[in-house]
């Protein structure tokens, strides 16, 4: 995401190294995917399950919600790259739908 959509780097100006594979990028990527995993556990009530994270992104991080779509696309690309046989069109549509719902839940507290 940081490489393909350089405008997203603006949120991480406090990191020393934004290159692929750098320490901060790897650690934060792991953290974000952990958040997505938490969302999987709350799949039947994403708005409730993600309320705290939504407040974080809305009031503290102030991330423009358009970027959730950008990151979702990059997650899809990486998963397709790592699991080419399993990421069928059916799996892709299910996962993309899920990420769209997560993005919506994450935007819930913005206004």
């Amino acid at each position: 995401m940081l490489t393909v959509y350089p405008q997203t780097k603006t949120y991480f100006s406090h990191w020393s190294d934004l290159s692929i594979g750098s320490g901060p990028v790897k650690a934060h990527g792991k953290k974000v995917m952990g958040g997505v995993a938490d969302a999987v556990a709350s799949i039947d009530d994403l708005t409730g399950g993600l309320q705290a994270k939504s407040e974080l992104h809305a009031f503290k991080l102030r991330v423009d919600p358009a970027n959730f779509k950008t990151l979702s696309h990059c997650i899809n690309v990486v998963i397709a790259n790592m699991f080419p046989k399993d990421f069928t069109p059916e799996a892709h549509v299910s996962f993309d739908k899920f990420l769209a719902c997560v993005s919506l839940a994450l935007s819930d507290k913005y206004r």
Partner: protein
Amino acid sequence: MVEWTDFERDTIQDIFSKIDYDTVGPAALARCLVVYPWCQRYFGNFGNLYNAAAIKSNPMVAKHGTTILHGLDRAVKNMDDIKNTYAELSVLHSEKLHVDPDNFKLLTDCLTIVVAGQMGKDFTGEVQAAFQKFLAVVVSSLGRQYH
């Protein structure tokens, strides 16, 4: 005029020389019709698109997918003037086919995902950036003649 680095030029030529058009084209279009079902509105005469299995085995989808990918060849060969290369196709998509230009991006996202699945570890972040920049220029050129 779009500025291309040597890495970007080499990457685009490399990708298009490696992919199998008859696999990637159909896969990308089929994936687009499954993941973004509203795109099916433009393919009313393609027959059975009722479910993913039908879409993936539909011969008209396959043929059209290959056609679209070969259409990208023109841009690959004319990277310094993609805008004019696609002027006529842009008019076609606007005046005759009436395709919402937002759909171009959906198709290129699916194409990126199909190519990512094919290229394995060669599909680095830098390669993806070059590929998506190229596709963004194509998408922009195709939308240019709309009014």
